[in-house]
């Protein structure tokens, strides 16, 4: 295959990488003054990458001798990743404007671009080594982002924790990859799948377990979730929103691809791991969230909980299941970004961010619109119809029931009731409690617009999009099978 075709298939990643490098150069000479321009340019680079997706990048097949696969599945995940990244860039300026001494520096959008590039490689990787390179590119950018507020102790702690535990996870993953390579003789997914056909050897099974442990770490599934609450709490809020959305999509999509493309013949083996991780995440995410008083920690546990639900779709191991995972992620990204955008509006009179759930008290009276939006996100995260979050659960549970996984479906859905409790607690605080001092008024039209957009998407109006998104996720899922 000639080089031009390879480049055409990896065009989105190239756009992102070159764009990031160019902007970094601008930043080097422009300094902090250029931050605003670079942020805007970064959003346009993401848009450009999105446009580049429409070409051969969405359906070209294998590039670089099977190292990279451009297909509908990767494209769908990338669209979500780019949207989430763009929102993370857009929500940053007003947050950093209020921090003490930590200004928004031009590295922020550049790091997000690099991270997005890494995520694009992750979801399109069809070789273990491509996957690892993409993962590390994403992770290294993310470690820096987590500790972006240099003068803030919690932020530095979050960055360090994320780095140490992330490095450990990468090590576990790499160990698994080396085992798989050792026993199958290849790192290409198609070759690995051949090795898993028939009765896999013990070494291959060990490799599978380690690979899944590493992946579970990246998607923060129980029992590898412990870094999530600390990192989410410590990182600057826009970065937390980013962590909870884009890398989560990327890591889950990557896990799905590894599970289905590389280890598809060993479905019965990994299904046990996925079922355990799914149920443990749902239950722990729900139970541990109950005692939280910090809204960012609450959302961290909520993200653990949601990953569990998404994994239910993967456990089904069918095209419907994968389509359900993508549908879940689509709706989850909207709910999460919306929730974090609301968290961003939680500022005291002095403009400083507040994060306690108690400070939301009586918000329905002081800021009715914002309270209604957060209530929509919370009910939706709890999966209560008629909000769109219900359809997310519908998609994954439907796939699980079709695959005959009744115990998983019953336990999972019953545990979702526990989760409903803490989402309700937020609504209760906003609607039933006496008003606390009102938050400072919103001064950013972009954020207000994004919140409204997310709320409308999650509202019952979103159901009208099901045929469109459903057809798209199904086409994406079919690309893997």
């Amino acid at each position, binding site marked *: 295959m000639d080089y031009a075709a390879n480049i055409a298939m990896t065009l989105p990643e190239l756009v992102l990488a070159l764009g990031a490098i160019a902007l970094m150069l601008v930043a080097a000479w422009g300094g902090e003054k250029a931050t605003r321009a670079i942020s805007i340019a970064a959003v346009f680079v993401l848009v450009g990458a999105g446009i580049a997706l429409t070409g051969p990048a969405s359906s070209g097949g294998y590039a670089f001798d099977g190292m990279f696969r451009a297909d509908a599945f990767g494209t769908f995940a990338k669209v979500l990743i780019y949207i989430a990244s763009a929102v993370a860039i857009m929500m940053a300026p007003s947050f950093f404007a209020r921090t003490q001494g930590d200004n928004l520096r031009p590295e922020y959008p550049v790091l997000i671009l690099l991270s997005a590039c890494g995520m694009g490689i992750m979801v399109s990787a069809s070789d273990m080594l491509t996957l690892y390179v993409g993962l590390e590119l994403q992770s290294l950018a993310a470690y820096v982002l987590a500790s972006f507020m240099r003068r803030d102790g919690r932020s530095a702690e979050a960055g360090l924790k994320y780095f140490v535990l992330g490095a450990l996870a990468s090590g576990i993953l790499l160990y698994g990859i080396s085992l798989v390579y050792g026993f199958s003789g290849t790192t290409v997914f198609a070759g690995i799948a051949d090795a898993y056909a028939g009765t896999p050897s013990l070494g291959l099974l060990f490799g599978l377990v380690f690979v899944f442990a590493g992946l579970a770490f990246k998607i923060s599934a129980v029992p590898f979730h412990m870094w999530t609450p600390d990192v989410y709490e410590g990182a600057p809020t826009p970065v937390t929103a980013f962590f909870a959305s884009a890398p989560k999509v990327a890591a889950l999509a990557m896990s799905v691809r590894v599970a289905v493309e590389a280890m598809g013949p060993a479905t019965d083996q990994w299904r046990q791991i996925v079922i355990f991780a799914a149920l443990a995440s749902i239950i722990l995410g729900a139970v541990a969230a109950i005692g939280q008083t910090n809204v960012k920690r609450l959302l961290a546990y909520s993200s653990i909980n949601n990953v569990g639900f998404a994994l239910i779709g993967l456990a089904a191991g069918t095209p419907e299941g994968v389509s359900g995972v993508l549908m879940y992620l689509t709706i989850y990204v909207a709910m999460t970004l919306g929730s974090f955008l609301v968290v961003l509006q939680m500022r005291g009179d002095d403009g400083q961010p507040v994060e306690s759930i108690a400070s939301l008290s009586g918000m329905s*009276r002081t800021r009715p619109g914002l309270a209604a939006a957060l209530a929509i996100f919370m009910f939706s995260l709890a999966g209560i119809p008629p909000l769109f979050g219900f359809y997310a659960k519908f998609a994954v*549970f439907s796939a699980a029931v079709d695959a005959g996984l009744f115990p998983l479906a*019953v336990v999972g859905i019953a545990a979702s009731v526990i989760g409903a409790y803490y989402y309700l607690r937020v*609504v209760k605080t906003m609607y039933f409690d006496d008003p606390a001092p009102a938050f400072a008024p919103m001064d950013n039209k972009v954020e207000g617009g994004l919140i409204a957009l997310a709320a409308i998407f999650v509202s019952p109006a979103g159901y009208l999009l099901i045929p469109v998104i459903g057809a798209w996720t199904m086409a994406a899922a079919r690309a893997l099978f």
Partner: protein
Amino acid sequence: MTGFPILSVLIAVPMIAAIACLFVSANTARMLALAGTLIDFVLGIMLWMNYDIGGAQWQFVEHAPGIFGPFGWSLGIDGFALMLIMLSVFLMPICIGASWRSITTRVPEYMAAFLFTEVLMIGTFAAQDLFLFYVFFEAGLIPMYLIIGIWGGANRIYASYKFFLYTLLGSVLMFIAMLYMAKTAGTTSIPALLNYDFPAHVQTWLWLAFFASFAVKMPMWPVHTWLPDAHVQAPTAGSVILAGVLLKLGGYGFLRFLLPMFPEASGQLTWLIFGLSAVAVIYTSLVALVQSDMKKLIAYSSVAHMAIVTIGLFAFNRQGIEGAMIMMLSHGLVSGALFLCVGVIYDQLHTREISRYGGLAINMPRYAILFLFFTMASIGLPGTSGFVAEFLSLMGTYQVSTWTALLCTTSIILGAAYMLYLYRRVVFGEIKSDDVRGMVDLSAREFWLLAPIAAVVLWMGVYPESFLAPMRKDVSVLLARVDRAKPASDSNPTAGKPATVHDAAHGEAH
């Protein structure tokens, strides 16, 4: 009327009014809500007038498949749904009227929550798609949670949580069962599923999953404990709608899903229904007898009355099912009216303690008369709807299980005991305190809230045919469907000579 999507309009009118309510002032919101519910009531009357009794099983059908992906917007009603929709649209303006003065804080949101509730109730009864039904059914939790939590009494937060989580836990299992049914039968259309035969062993599991949901909603003993809490804490209109319509969702679910979709399982598990219902009747009636809180007393009486509904439904015969339906309608009206009666005096004295009142007959004669009328209707005095309901249900049950009928008939005696005891303590006797002496009789508004209900209760008691006629054909369809799984009767009617018509019919069935 052909071509006019009246059911969609019924759903859309309160929906639009609800959204509009959020953006206007308190007084405008009140007017808007009243207008919206009255328009819906008029539409409901048009629906009933145009309903072709004895015509097609499903009427006013609207079908837009696939607009929500795996499920579509399909609506349609039969006689059961028609009657329950009528109950909803009839009670709704009354609820708005009952909240006219007693709700003073956050009126626009309150009115919007009620209108949303109306949307969801009508949607639940009219839905012809399994998942559309579930969406409407579950969504009702959100406005009710807010109504109890924001405008409720002192312990409202506990009650709102209990209400929400209890009913949610019941429903999610039903959701899994629905997914299985949709996959196995290959359709989400309720009319199609009504004629789909699931294997008997699967039916039992599905039955239990649906039962978990509807039994909580109904509520049946022992999962009824959320109801007294929710009722006591909810504002008056909230209690009316809770008792009047939301509890009927449980009964409707039994009627629409459990019996026709899983006839074999229903036949096998009749003992469970009968057992729980008999316990409910006796236990909750006795509990009602010792309550000191008026709303709690009526809430417990609701549980007892709902048990009469369940035994009637599971009698597998015409009298039982018709009795159960009339019981649902009658209970919706009567207990709604009783909650309104409590609301009238609560608004003046701000207490529901029975012992604080007494002698109201002296200074509130009009109130005493209407309260007496509804008390009698609750007991089941002939001439009121309660009598028709209890008589038909118990007669139906007797043909299947004499023991259950015997135990459940105590509901009439115990019902008389607790209701009359309540009435005596509140209305008769001497006025004990000055604040009670200062209470004033029904205002014109309150009178016109209660009078229409009284008229309908009387109508249903004297000429129930108006309400039975639209349902008659649907009962026949249901019976034809479940007849094969009919449980054996223990009443063993001895064949005398000459053989009665009833025995001949019984012989043919076997």
